[in-house]
Structures are given as C-alpha cells and as structure tokens.
C-alpha cells in the first residue's frame, strides 16, 4: 500500500515560511497572492495490505513522529500502489 500524508499548520498558527514566500512572490511581480501556507507532503510505502489497518498504522505514525500535533494537522490518503 502507498500512503500520502499532508501535514499542515493548524489555523491561526503563524507560518513564517508561508509569510516569507508570499512576500517574495509579491516582489517577483506576482500580485494578488494571499494566504500562502507551507506544509509537508510525505509519501510512504507500507507492507500492510489491508487499507483499514494501513490507515490506522499511518495515523499512529503521524501522531508519534510525522506531525507535531501541538501545532499541526495531518491528513492521510491510502492508495493501492
């Protein structure tokens, strides 16, 4: 199974990176860009064959390691290949 994980900052949490990127885009002439937020995108392959169990496993990984749940949310997609 393949898992795709999005880790994003919770709403209201300051995103210094997003802020700087937004600013830089502005100076590069891309006007009208707002609300830039930068997160992480993680792909992994799992030995687990059962989608339900795979999802539960990745959930545990997110809570334990992949996401900092104090300030971050995560979303998991499980796919066949």
């Amino acid at each position, binding site marked *: 199974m393949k898992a795709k994980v999005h880790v994003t*900052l*919770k709403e*209201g*949490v*300051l*995103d*210094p990176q997003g*802020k*700087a990127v937004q*600013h830089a885009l502005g100076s590069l002439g891309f006007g009208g860009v707002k609300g830039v937020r930068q997160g992480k995108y993680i792909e992994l392959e799992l030995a687990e064959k059962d989608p339900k169990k795979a999802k539960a496993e990745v959930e545990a990984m997110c809570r334990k390691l992949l996401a*900092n749940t*104090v*300030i971050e949310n995560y979303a998991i997609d499980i796919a066949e290949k």
Partner: protein
Amino acid sequence: MNEITPATVAAHGLSPEEYARVRAILGRTPNLTELGIFSVMWSEHCSYKSSKKWLKLLPTTAPWVICGPGENAGVIDIGDGQAVIFKMESHNHPSFIEPYQGAATGVGGILRDVFTMGARPIANLNSLRFGSPDHPRTRHLLGGVVAGIGGYGNCVGVPTVGGECTFHPAYNGNILVNAMTVGLADKNRIFYSAAKGVGLPVVYVGSKTGRDGIHGATMASAEFSEDADAKRPTVQVGDPFTEKLLIEACLELMATDAIVAIQDMGAAGLTSSSFEMASKGGLGVELDLDQVPLREAGMTPYEIMLSESQERMLMIVKPGREDMAKRVFEKWELDVAVIGRTTDTGHMILKKDGRVVADLPIDPLAKASPQYDRPWRAAPRPAVIPAADVPQTNDLLGALKRLLGSPDLASKRWIWEQYDHMVMADTAGRPGGDAALVRVHGTKKALALTSDCTPRYCAADPVEGARQAVAEAWRNITATGATPLAVTDNMNFGNPEKPEIMGQFAGCIEGMRDACLALDFPVVSGNVSFYNETNGQAILPTPAIGAVGLIEDVAKAVAIAFKVEGLTVILVGDTKGHLGASIYLREICGREEGAPPPVDLDAERRNGDFVRRMIREGRIQACHDVSDGGLLVAVAEMALAGSVGAEIAPPSDEPPLHAWLFGEDQGRYVAATRDAQQVLGAAREAGVPVHVLGTTGGQTLTVGGIGSISLPELRESHEGWLPRYMATA
C-alpha cells in the same frame, strides 16, 4: 462569556480578594478586556508578587553598574564608552509543551529584552534542566529544545557560546529552559522604557498580531497538571528571520534621535508594554486598536491586548518622527503603524470601532498590584557526611570513567555543535571550557560569559547551594583570567504558596546575597519562575546564575586545555575531601544525601584573585576550576581538551584517596604552569594554599600508586554518552 462570573475570575488566575481589589480600584465591575488586562498585569510572571520583597535584598550596585534590575535588562560599564547589557529569562512551561517552539521563542524573547535597550546582541547562553534520562519524554524534550535554541539563534546570527545541561528526576514533569543574551552598546546611547512627554505617537513595529499565546503570562504563573495537553493552542511559533530584521531595523532607528522610549512586547504583549511605558513615565496612553496590524480577521480587543505574538516592539517617538520610523521599518520590510498617543490623563484608554472598550487608571493598577509576604519555612540542614563514611571503590580509575560518562558530567558537545557558536567572528573561547570568551568587536578586550547552578546542592541546603552557584560562576570567569563583573539570575522554583518552597526561595536569596556581596558581584537583572510543579511534585530549587566578566587583553586569557607536555600541574585551594551531595556519592554509591560543600567566601576570593593575577602575569598556561566530580574529573577534562595527558601524585596521608580525588570542596583551581617556583612563591606570599600535583605529558592519565587510563578510553566515555543517548529512539 462577557459576563464576569466567579468562574471567569478564577480562570484568569485572580483570587477573590484580588478581584475585590480590582472592583475597588475601578469603582465598578470590569469588562472582560479589563479583567484580562488585570489578570496578566497581576500575574506572578509580570508582577513578581511573591518575590519582590525578597529580591530587594540582593545587592545591585557597584561603580560599574549603569542600570540594575527594573529595566528590560541590566547594564554595566566596560570602559571606553561601551556598556554591556544582559539578562536571563525562563521559557520553562512553553518548552515542556512544545520543546522546539518553546525554546526558540524563549531565545527570541530574551534577545528583544536586550536589543530594546540599544544593544547589539553578541552572545547567547542557555541553562537547561531535564528529567531523568530514563524518562520517556526526556530525549524528545532535549532534542527539541536544543534544535529550537539553535534554530532561532543560528538564524538571527548571534553566537550561542555556552550554557549548562543537567538531569534529575525532579524535572520529569517540568523542564527548565533559561536563555541569556548579552549585548553591546554605546554607553551614551542606551534606551529605556519610561515614556516622556504628552501627545507623542505610540508606534507599533514588527510582526502582525495573531491569536498566539493568549494567556501565556498566566500560564507561566500556574502549576501544571495532567491536562497540560489541553493548554496546547497557546503555543507560539517563532520567526527568527523577522527578529533578525527587527534587530537591524531597531538599531538603525536607534542611531537617529527619533526614539523617546522603547519596549519589547514580551509576556502579555501589548498590555504590559504599553502599560509599563506609561506607568514608568507617569503618563496616560490612548490606543486605537483598529490601527494594530492584525494577522487574523475578527480579533477582539481582549485578544489584541493579550496576544503574545512574537517579534513585536512598541515605541514612543518624538513628534514628527513617525515618517522616519516608517521609512526605516519599511526598508526592512516590517509592519509599522502609529497606534496611539501618550496623554496626561493617567488612564489607559482603548478604542475600537470608535468606541471606548477599556478605561483603566494606570497608577493605581500598577501600584496596587498585590504584594505577598508568603509564609516560609526553612528546611532542616542535612548532616555533614564524613568521607570515612563513604565507601571507597577499589577501582578508582573505573570510577573516573563512569563519572565522566555520567549524564551531568558527560561532554555537551552534541548540544553546542548544533549552535553556531562562531558567527560574528569574535568567539575567542569556544564552548567546552569554563567561561566562553567573546571579543568586544574591534578591540583587544573580551567578555567572559558563563551560567551555573548546582541544584542538588540547593536542594540539600538552599543558602549554601546559592552561595555555591554564585561562587562557581565567579570562578569560571576567573579561570580564564577575566575579572567577574556582574550577575543575572533566573530563579526557578515550585509553588510559592507552599511554605517549604518559599523557604527554598528565601534561602537561595540569602545565599546569593552573601556571595554577591563578598565577591563584589552585583545582580543587575533577573527573572523569577515559580509554579514549576506537576501534580504536586516540585523541581529542585534552581537559581541559575548567568555572569559576565571582562579581560582587557584577550591574548592573555587561558583555556582549560593541557596543550604542552612537561608543565607542572598545581592545585590552588584547600582540599578536605567533601563527598556529601557529590556526584561520586550519587553515581558510584547510589546515594543522594548530605550537606553540600561549604563555600568559604574569603578563601574563594583570595584564591580567585591569586589565580587571575598569575594568569595575567603569564605564569599560568592552562586553568580550570574544580567543580562537579572533583579534582580528578577536572584534571581529566583538561587532558581531554588538549589531548595531552598528565601524571599526578596523591598526598601520602589525609584525606582518604577517594575523597581527595572526587571530593567537591569549593574555591579550587587546577592549573598548568611553566613557572612553578614563581607561582608557589607568590602563593606563599598571598597566603593561598597551593600543591604540586604532577606534570603534563603522554596520552594517559596516571595517578601515582593507582594506575593509568588512556585518554581515548576516557574520551569515549566522556564524549560518547550524549550522542549515544540521543541516537537511541
């Protein structure tokens, strides 16, 4: 929740008596915004209500002190028209909740305290305490805190040159993260926070205000319980890049005559900064909250006033200088806005959407802030443990190896290599020695910087332990050849409402006072962090001492490393063999008990002044104070630092060998010299006890009559522990 109920009052950390006082001052019931303001202004963190009475006992003056406690940071004179500005501050609770961001924002906060006074920050230090290495959270907390300190300090480009890091189960539920910043300023260009003049613009600069850390100050003033997780959303995220721009922009504007007063927005953000500036200047202030740059839509006055968003400053500027301020901050791509003006009403008036949303009298609020004389009880002094009652292992060199690889004594290289300790290209004495040396840019002079505390001594005997903490900081500076000048402190304790905790606090203040007076080492700034308890379990009393010294010619300073073979190794100071509360007793005998080593402040001063003089006269080539772990540990550290061994001979009679090798008697230094005869002669004249220990050379450490151990074997133990510990998940 706009109605003020007893539950609302309690949620704001105000006692019913305090709330009654609020109502008496206002002559009415406060609205929620006003209550919020009272709650942070009267929090322990902002008002020092339990500690003020005691802090007054500390000596704070000396001819070289320009500004003592009361401002954002302390200021001392280092000659040639220059001043050093420094302070230490805690970020314990936030770091426990989110170690990376908690520690990072701790560094950001203390940097702002220093550059708000007009100084360019030139060095950071940090004093860290973690729980037992076996505790399941310790590794994660340590890794996160160190990465956070590095992440922030490295990015702003201020070298992190020193600190300390020890472990004890008492910190399992309450780690300590104390950060210190040292800055350099022109003596006649120091900025203070008192507003002067009516009708002047109040200017906001830095990052936008978001809903970060609302209630941070009250959180720092409350005990932890298991539901600490529920408090998570108050975590703030640091933006070191913006801080770096803020430093440059503020220093640029400070070079003009635009600023009347300036204050960083720290704990309690806009509330405490505006309040303090007005209160110190005896003025009123009127703020238009619609002008405050906001990050999020729909923020209420309550949220705007209590937000602890980072990287923000508040300034009062001269009339007509708003545009100049705007130009500078816009060049650095920072937000800047005039958000109000000073008044002569003595009131703080907040407006939003054209309506008055809060109206508070400033003076009564500041002056009537509660002050407590909390009951206290001194702990009984533990018995002195005679060396003869402590078992001697038959493998003394094995014991040395174990001590060097024990968590408290193991090398902290893994930590400091994650800190850029060389940026600014003035670090003449890097981490790993006694005090770090940072050259005063463009001169031959250098500052010696250190932070010290031995909490197990303070737990055993707060008075003696605090004397020791001050003495050790003084000694670490002296061991480089520098003259100790002044101290900042970070008093970390449990719940002050408990008499035994207040007893520890009172005892530590007494000890610090003794030592600071005896060593001419005034306290110029500091911070108190109470309520370091989880589920009723308090931390060890931890009065961390940060200190600054000065050497006129950095070329004369010495380091701890044995670099040359054939030097005579000497010991300065008396050795009685005190093993009570020692690392040997704990690590080898598994006992944590007994009175800590007493500090003889007269001897301390005599020995230190002698060592410093010998260094300045070029008679000593390497020097290290003797602290945790005792004499043999000190000699081993010197050998490892320079990769040159030594052979030393123990005395023939008293004290017992293990006590001589591992006793933690105070006021001692190990030095290597090529002028042994002159040094011994000078010591005799000065009435300072000096013993010849042996000679440097080879690749082993040899103790006469006992045996040898190779430096690689010792190094493996000393350098290996922390990386190995952190590598295991």
